[in-house]
């Protein structure tokens, strides 16, 4: 067996009096997609922010390649190859593709004594990086990020992380708010990243998306790992139930039927979790 790239042992995190994460034990291996599932407020974002160096664990230890690591700031995690893509991918809507791709690591060339931002290289590299992931519609590095679709932005952000040698790629709900086609683009890119031997941590509320790419699943309920299993070990229904916080959705179905009976056949108005699943 390969050694895990990233491992958490008994990680706890509290914000003052609020305990958010309890004794988290998790491992991710190279070339594996770990799907992090759980209801709103379960602590998924807090967990990945801890991995990304945004928060420090209150107690517990993180290991990379078997060695203990601590991150004081996001840069420390990034330097070790942990790349995080946040929900809306491109965070600089008014910057060009080329410029935003290289924020913080600008390519330069020298003109006399002056350091010059190498726009040509930046644009070409960025465009090439996304095109390698199959997004061929991005062909002009001078376009503004804000003009790309949500899926294109996600793809660009993932391509960027891979380009800069990410070993662990953390994606916080990359398919939320995307249409079916766009989401499938992003899922394909996740698989592509996995094929390159990157460990991917993928957060989603959509069981279909999780089932499509996941090798390994961890379900968080109120900050604790409630289930931790590999692909094929649980059925789609079991996963759905776990994601809803452990309550069987079957119960919800009966409740719905009861509701419809008393309300002349109308389903309840607000879109519930059941419709997503």
């Amino acid at each position, binding site marked *: 067996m390969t050694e895990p790239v990233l491992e958490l042992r008994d990680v706890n995190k509290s914000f003052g009096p609020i305990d958010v994460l309890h004794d988290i034990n998790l491992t991710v291996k190279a070339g594996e997609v770990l799907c992090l599932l759980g209801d709103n407020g379960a602590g998924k974002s807090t967990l990945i922010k801890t991995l990304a160096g945004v928060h420090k664990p209150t107690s517990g230890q993180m290991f990379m390649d078997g060695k203990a690591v601590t991150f004081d700031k996001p840069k420390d995690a990034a330097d070790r190859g942990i790349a995080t893509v946040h929900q809306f991918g491109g*965070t600089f809507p*008014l910057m060009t593709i080329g410029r935003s791709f290289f924020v913080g*690591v600008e390519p330069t060339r020298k003109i006399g004594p*002056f*350091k*010059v931002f190498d726009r*040509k290289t930046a644009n070409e590299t960025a465009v090439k990086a996304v095109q390698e992931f199959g997004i061929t519609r991005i062909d002009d590095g001078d376009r503004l990020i804000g003009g790309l679709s949500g899926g294109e932005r996600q793809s660009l952000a993932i391509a960027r992380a891979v380009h800069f040698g990410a070993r662990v790629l953390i994606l916080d709900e990359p398919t939320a708010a995307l249409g079916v086609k766009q989401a499938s683009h992003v899922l394909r890119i996740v698989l592509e990243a996995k094929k390159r031997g990157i460990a991917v941590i993928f957060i989603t509320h959509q069981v279909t998306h999780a089932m499509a790419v996941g090798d390994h699943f961890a379900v968080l309920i109120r900050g604790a790992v409630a289930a931790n299993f590999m692909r094929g070990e649980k059925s789609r229904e079991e996963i759905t139930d776990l994601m809803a916080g452990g309550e069987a959705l079957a119960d919800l179905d009966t409740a719905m039927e009861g509701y419809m009976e008393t309300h002349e056949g109308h389903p309840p108005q607000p879109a519930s979790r059941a419709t997503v699943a």
Partner: protein
Amino acid sequence: MATATRTDTATTGAQGQATGRSFGALVRRPEAGSVLGLLAVFIFFTAVSGPIFVLPAGFASWLNVAAEIGIVALPIGLLMIAGELDLSIGAVIPASALTFAVISGFYGAPEIVGVAAAFGVGLLVGAINGFLVLRTGVPSLIVPIGTMFAVMGLTLGLSVLLTGATSSNVVPSPFWKGLMGQFIGGMFQVTIFWWAAFAAIVAYILHVSPFGNWVYAVGGDKISARNAGIPTERLTISLFMLSGFAAAFVGVSQAMVYQSAQVAGGQAFIFNSIMCVVIGGVLLTGGFGSVFGIVLGTITLSMVNQGIYFTGFDPNLGSVIIGALLLLAVLMNDTFRQMALSYSSKKKS
């Protein structure tokens, strides 16, 4: 005028790709709207005030004004692109002018000492602004207002305490006068050249050097920029110091020109510099803008400010035009930004 601006856009924009990118590349540039604004203003005043407006005297009248505002508008623009605001320049200009006048005039110390001290005042106020903005997390609209009042109070207090007056006279030596306070050809202030130099430096910083990318990134999203490894705190403090320095430079050059300095004065620069920047296409919330646009905005504002005297109109009409122009600029820049966002070079290939 039109051809001049067009070649400029081309040179700043064409270092990379093929030359054929016409409309998309143009519309994507932050100054797209301000080019039109400047043209409209120029044509209007040339038509209304006749040939005098395009004679050297006409040019000098607005260029002199533009140079002084322009020197502070440039770093204010950088700050605004980085998502910050600095109103304290309104106090730094008189404070540094008076520092120079008191040291080199009242006490008779060599000019270099007075100039250095005045620049020091600007840099120090800038550093304090930057530091306080970072430490307190209070929006940078408030912090510089605080330092502005503090500096105004200190300037008045110290001036009265040291010299017993609220103004000071200074007669700079020909060398210093020539460097910072001379009129060339009897009408063009030497500050025009300094403005050009400042513009070149700031353009290099923002558009050419890798540092410029940091400014855009910080203005776009500060947290992501920091996570990407950009030293955002050092950047913010540097930008505030740059604006403090530019304000001090204008203060000293005013003292050289008028050979005196007063406690008051300088407040007009606050709004004027912000208006130049906004007319020039810089986004109020940060992340978007260009030096070329700021320069165009400065010229536009100064043309209206001065051009009104060449017409038969009531000078108060100038303010009305500026107000309308500002509103129009914001609306137009918004439209152009939307076009920039949605424009791709090969639509639906």
